[in-house]
């Protein structure tokens, strides 16, 4: 079973890298991009075969290591 974790900065936290990408897109002539948020995607290969157990386990991984919940939020997809 696979899991995909998407980690993003929380909505109130200024994303300076996303802002830099937005400026770069503008200077390349891509008009109309009003916002860019940058995050990371982490794919996990799991031995677990039960989706609910896998989700609980990945949630614990996110809270302990994969995300810093002070500034980041995460979404888990079980694939």
């Amino acid at each position, binding site marked *: 079973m696979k899991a995909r974790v998407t980690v993003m900065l929380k909505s109130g*936290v200024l994303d*300076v*890298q996303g802002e830099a990408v937005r400026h770069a897109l503008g200077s390349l002539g891509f008009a109309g991009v009003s916002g860019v948020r940058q995050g990371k995607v982490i794919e996990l290969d799991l031995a677990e075969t039960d989706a609910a157990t896998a989700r609980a386990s990945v949630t614990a991984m996110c809270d302990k*290591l994969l995300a*810093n919940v*002070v*500034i980041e939020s995460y979404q888990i997809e079980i694939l």
Partner: protein
Amino acid sequence: MKAAVITFPGSNCDRDLAVAFEKAGFDVVRVWHKDSALPHGVDVVGVPGGFSFGDYLRCGAIAAQSPIAGALRQHADKGGYVLGICNGFQVITEMGLLPGALMRNAGLKFICKSVDLVVAAQNSPFTSRYATGQSIALPVAHHDGNYTIDAQGLARLHAEDRVALRYAQNPNGSMGDIAGVLSENRRVLGMMPHPERAVDAATGGTDGAGIFASLLGGMALA
């Protein structure tokens, strides 16, 4: 007084930190990240700068889960002193020993230069040898020193006199110009500038020596 300095894979200020503690008069022991206990009788633990675990995932995140981190947490919980510098500040913040987080510098560039700081705390065992409001110059060398905390947390830090050091000119976007913060019990200090690189007149000045002297003096009285 006894200081322990932790080395993680990728630490590069650990020896300088040990030298700075020694120069101030501490007995220094070096500790490896896989150790699960601190040597007996350690008064202060230094968490050094560098790029622990290659800054993978987030700066300090993997070091914050290493075996020595458990011992460090116990030490802090018992009221032991902790000094986290640069990557060490990131590590102890990731551990939750200090509030907030250190994000990518607002200008996105790695900053390596000497900066002017203001000693902000009225009462701190790490800065008692300086006058409150005194200006000191210390080197910074970081890519992720942009201190971030929610509005409530920031207000609390100010109300509780827990901002130890402020930047005179903010180099990295840190909220409240914060360069160093204290824990609630005032015994844990995290700071981005490098006092251990400023303890010898021949190399970088001596403005950082007061941090180590303050700590030693405060412990001798305690």
